[in-house]
């Protein structure tokens, strides 16, 4: 065999391996991510219950319904509670990540305890906190033992004025450790020489944070902020499990899935999904611009 032939068979072999190795992953990606997306856009122009063989084309009526009836877009208000919650969560996570970077006793224990909730099954978390918030439950017991009269305590999951605070704090409890571990990974990658130089120069901890840690992990902080915004818009699991959207705790995603699978208005639900994705795309675009602007 000449060298030329050898090369051509190698090229041929490469082609074969590329195609066979990518075939299944790409098929799965296309069938379960891109095809649903195209279908969803298509369904959003139809009136359809998801099972009937006939779909009725109604143009933009689904979108019109969503934008003219306040009950749909109002759902985004619930996201605000989670959004504020996640900003608080990021600040606390940043504090603990910084602090756990110091020489402290039992720091792995504290890190582990704060992080572990992130690994717990969402349904288990939901139930644990239904038990925590129920009347005469853990929170009521703790607060009455501090001398607060039971009659002054609200129904934490039953009062529409309180429920979203309760649920958003469950979300903070669950995801705080995730942020903390990400920040602490980023902080650990800052060169120790920098701290040493700073402490020789007499920088205190706040100055160290401000001038060394913060600039080095700025990118991961902004990434987490963007993820927090996306997360707050697409909150679903905690309200679904704990209240099923009752007492004003429903969210846009919860309402979307209810519209599709309980009310069986697949067309309308698809239009809601499209709107949600558009919002997420806008946020991602802004994020990209923001990062590119920063790096330039």
């Amino acid at each position: 065999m000449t060298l030329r032939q050898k090369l051509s068979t190698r090229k041929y072999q490469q082609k074969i391996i590329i195609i066979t190795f990518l075939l299944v992953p790409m098929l799965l990606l296309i069938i379960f991510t891109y095809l649903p997306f195209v279908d969803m856009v298509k369904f959003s122009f139809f009136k359809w219950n998801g099972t009937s063989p006939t779909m009725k084309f109604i143009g933009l009526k689904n979108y019109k319904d969503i934008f003219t009836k306040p009950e749909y877009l109002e759902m985004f208000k619930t996201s605000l509670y989670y959004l504020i919650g996640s900003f608080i969560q990021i600040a606390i996570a940043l504090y603990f990540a910084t602090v756990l970077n110091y020489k402290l006793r039992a720091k792995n224990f504290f890190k582990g305890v704060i992080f572990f909730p992130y690994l717990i099954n969402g349904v288990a978390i939901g139930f644990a906190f239904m038990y925590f918030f129920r009347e005469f439950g853990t929170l009521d017991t703790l607060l009455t033992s501090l001398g607060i009269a039971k009659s002054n305590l609200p129904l934490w999951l039953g009062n529409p004025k309180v429920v979203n605070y309760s649920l958003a704090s469950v979300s903070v409890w669950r995801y705080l450790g995730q942020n903390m571990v990400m920040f602490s990974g980023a902080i650990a990658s800052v060169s120790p020489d920098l701290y040493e130089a700073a402490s020789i120069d007499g920088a205190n901890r706040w100055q160290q944070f401000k001038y060394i840690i913060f600039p080095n992990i700025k990118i991961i902080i902004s990434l987490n902020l963007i993820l927090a915004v996306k997360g707050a818009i697409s909150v679903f699991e905690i309200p679904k499990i704990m209240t099923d959207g009752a007492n004003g705790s429903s969210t846009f995603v919860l309402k979307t899935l209810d519209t599709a699978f309980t009310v069986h208005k697949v067309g309308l639900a698809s239009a809601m999904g499209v709107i949600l994705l558009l919002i997420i795309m806008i946020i991602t675009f802004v994020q990209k611009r923001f990062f590119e602007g920063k790096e330039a």
Partner: protein
Amino acid sequence: MKKKFSISNLFIYLSLIISAAIAIVPLLVVLIGSFKTGEELNSTGVLELPRNFTNISNYVKAFVDGKMLLGFANTFFILAFSIIATLLTGTMTAYVLSRFKFKFRKIVSSLFLIASLVPSITMQMSTFQIINGMGLFNTPWSTIILFAGTDIISIYIFLQFLDNISFSIDESAIMDGASYFTIFYRLMIPLLKPAIMTVLILKGVTFYNDFYTPYLYMPKPELAVISTALFRFKGPYGTQWEVICAGVIITMLPAFILFLLLQKQIYSGMTAGAVKE
């Protein structure tokens, strides 16, 4: 100066202890509750210890009547198939992306990247039609096939490793007459072991904790996985908190054991996924 330092340390320890308490108490009361009888749970305070720590009747009830035993069996079945599948799709994609230059390389990686920006939960109404159309609704394969694909984070984790494996290893194997497939599975897979471990843990936790996929695609009670078996406690055990508590502890236990054993890998896996994103 010295004094100020210790006051700030005191504040740090205090903040750590408070937050550790906030993390632990909601779970601790569940553990306490799980050993109480129904009558005891309603008549004693949440922080009062159970009269009898050997009272495991709630656990038996949760396991047997609550179908959690079945839930574990189904979860294990689904996890076994989907983890093997996602590791295969992930390593194959990463291998091709790392080792070969081809026309659609950029497109392939962008397609995975864009997919990661879209929360799949928002498209379930159309995904449902596809799964149903394939005849997979109410079979374990619905969940397995949805878990089987790979994602950009796994690909990045594998790529980080593959990029550090010298091409000369591939070259010399080719000289010895090895095919690309042999190189992939005789050389690359063993070298990728630490990355495979990381992805396995991350995916394992994600799949085990996933609630909505099995809830939506496998409503049949015989197909309950851990999440959905526990979720169904809401109806029949709605007022029997002691059984729900036992169910919560049972569900948490595997994650807890995993965490105790593999803490380091879990932390590094989480940062590996985050930094590249």
